[in-house]
């Protein structure tokens, strides 16, 4: 701690001599993706700058998550990069292994708010006993639906499916009653990257009681009836009954296109996360926001398959957070900046702009109240108890890609379910080795 203080003092002195600048990078751009993040930084950065007497610069990007990740990796590998990086929590293991993140146990020790963070969230930000990430927010996943389209099709509102069949039934009605409207968007394919694995594939697989990773044996599951049923569900939607648009899944910029179509009310149901509601559809989003979002867009918990023993509802959570670049010249200053970002006031103002499921109890107590934000309060209460996390191992992104490929091959009709599973099993075995995979009945 004393060391940190000395570093900090030296940094302050150096700063007054050379004019120090602390940089923060986030995947956000004013007027576009996560525009609320930029607004937020602009509102409180000046106070921190004044307080610490440094310049703080927000590097805006607002690009595809995969491209953002590549940029961060190349920045750090090249010996540069922003001091503070707002990154996805599931990158932590592979980044930490590569030495791309600075362990921040010394920094969080000085952050008063750290004691309020939930253990599950601290776990997301740590790897092999060291802390690398301060969680900024987490989320839950659900199925959104356009109430107006539902009413037009004569479907009940509010709507809560109890099984996959219920979802298909609603989709069939939409298809019949509202030509030109895509009944359901369930992400598939490699073009959407991790959004396919999290929002689509996992949300179905978990509902069949399945997973990609067996926590009891520590092995990756390459074949199971849950996997087969997951693909069967995809096939029903995209191939057999054409309740979703398979071409769209593999089109360039597929994700942005689906947002656009949802905004034009040409998609009735969309399985997505908290972020979709609070950022994409937010009235303050100039590209895809609905001014009357709260009245027009409803949400329902994603049901399980519907067989006895299946989970009633499912959700999976991810989260982003603040990590520190190992190349930073001013760890002491970075610590001071982070400390101030995590004060309760800026956190509440961020919540007002772009509500999220809180990773810390002090903020949760405030944000889970309906007056603060009805959506967050309700979805948190309903879904946090069902939610789970990804098997975040360094090898996970490669397996995740194989899962995306699996859905792509099925929805585009390139392969039968059995062929696609065979390829998947082979590829995953090649990645992790024969001794680390298993087949379940």
């Amino acid at each position, binding site marked *: 701690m004393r060391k940190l203080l000395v570093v900090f003092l030296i940094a302050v002195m150096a700063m007054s001599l050379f004019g120090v600048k602390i940089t923060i990078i986030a995947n956000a751009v004013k007027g576009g993706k996560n525009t609320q993040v930029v607004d937020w930084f602009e509102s409180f950065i000046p106070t921190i700058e004044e307080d610490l007497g440094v310049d703080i610069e927000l590097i805006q990007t607002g690009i595809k998550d995969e491209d953002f990740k590549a940029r961060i990796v190349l920045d750090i590998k090249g010996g540069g990069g922003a001091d503070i990086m707002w990154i996805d929590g599931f990158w932590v293991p592979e980044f930490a292994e590569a030495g*791309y993140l600075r362990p921040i146990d010394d920094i969080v020790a000085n952050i008063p708010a750290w004691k309020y963070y939930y253990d599950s969230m601290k776990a997301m930000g740590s790897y092999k006993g060291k802390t690398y990430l301060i969680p900024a927010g987490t989320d839950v996943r659900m199925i959104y639906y356009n109430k107006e389209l539902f009413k037009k099709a004569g479907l009940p509102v509010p709507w809560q499916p109890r099984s996959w069949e219920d979802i298909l039934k609603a989709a069939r009605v939409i298809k019949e009653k509202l030509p030109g409207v895509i009944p359901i968007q369930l992400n598939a394919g490699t073009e959407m990257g991790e959004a396919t694995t999290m929002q689509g594939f996992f949300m179905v697989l978990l509902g069949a009681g399945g997973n990609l990773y067996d926590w009891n044996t520590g092995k990756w599951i390459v074949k199971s009836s849950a996997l087969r049923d997951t693909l069967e569900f995809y096939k029903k939607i995209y191939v057999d009954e054409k309740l979703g648009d398979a071409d769209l899944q593999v*089109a360039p910029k597929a994700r942005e296109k689906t947002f656009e179509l949802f905004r034009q009310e040409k998609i009735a149901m969309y399985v997505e996360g908290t972020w979709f509601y609070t950022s994409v559809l937010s009235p303050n989003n100039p590209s895809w926001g609905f001014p009357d979002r709260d009245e027009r867009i409803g949400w329902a918990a994603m049901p399980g398959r519907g067989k006895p023993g299946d989970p009633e509802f499912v959700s999976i959570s991810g989260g982003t957070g603040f990590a520190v670049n190992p190349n930073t010249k001013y760890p002491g200053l970075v610590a001071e900046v982070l400390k101030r970002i995590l004060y309760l006031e800026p956190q509440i103002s961020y919540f007002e702009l772009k509500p999220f499921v809180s990773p810390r109890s002090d903020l949760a107590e405030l944000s889970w109240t309906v007056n603060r934000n009805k959506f967050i309060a309700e979805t948190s209460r309903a879904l946090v108890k069902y939610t789970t996390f990804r098997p975040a191992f360094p090898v996970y992104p490669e397996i995740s890609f194989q899962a995306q490929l699996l859905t792509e091959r099925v929805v585009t009709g390139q392969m039968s379910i059995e062929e696609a599973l065979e390829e998947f099993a082979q590829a995953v075995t090649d990645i992790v080795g024969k001794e680390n995979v298993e087949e379940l009945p």
Partner: protein
Amino acid sequence: MRGSAHHLIGKKTGILMLLPSLVLIGTFLVFPAIWVLYMGMTNETLTGIRAANPQFVGLQNFVRIFKDRFFYNALKISLLFVFGSAIVGQAGLGMTLSVITYRKSKKFRSFVQAVVILAWIIPEVVVAYLWVAFLDKDFGTLNNVLHWLGFEKINWFYDYPVLSIILFNTWRGTAFSMLLFSAALETIPPSYLEAADVMNVSPWRKFKDIILPNIKSYIFTDLILITLWTFNVFSPYLLTHGGPSFKTELLPIYIYRNAFRYFKIGYGSAISAVVLGINLALALVYLRLSGRGARK
């Protein structure tokens, strides 16, 4: 005066004058090529434990490439792309345009050339945006026009992905072949064609028997250059991202995907080395062919 009568400069001076270019070629061409080959024999990744401690794995990556269905997919598409857009498209169209404008009024020739060159000098990203704006299924100009004329909208990038990028690249790169052929045509002594005119020879015979034999070596030069360039073209990525479902994944895009999207830098380097080999082989084939042509 030690220099022999056959040489303008001495051997030593010659080497000395070559040295700067040899150093440049060594630094920027030979060294990276060897480096890529070396990287291709490691399992280095951009993240994870292999980023910190890459290992030498010998030929393992190369064995995997030749078992990777995505490699064959990319190879097939690249060959189609080179054949369609470079050989048939750019060289074919370039030849047609240069012959059409040959011995025509200067105004007409300047106009055609200016239009074609325009496509060549616009920055890559702008061009990609133009083509997306032109061909997109929902908001593309072409589809709007088709729709207005009462035709069904066509999802070009989805239903005709390879054709779309072939057309794009033909449009994009025809200027080079056209300029080269136009210049080549100027080297034919006018009397040859004037004599043929007097004898009332058909245009096809003039083309086959006078023009072609006279510019043969230029054609080979053009083909070798555009084949190699087209093999390494990356810009279709800006149109289709290699999709839908890898149907336009050219070799350079396949390399990019492995190296920078999935961070398998070792594997990506190995593919690069293979592509380098293919390029060298192609260059050798052309050089041999053109050598034979010149000797005739």
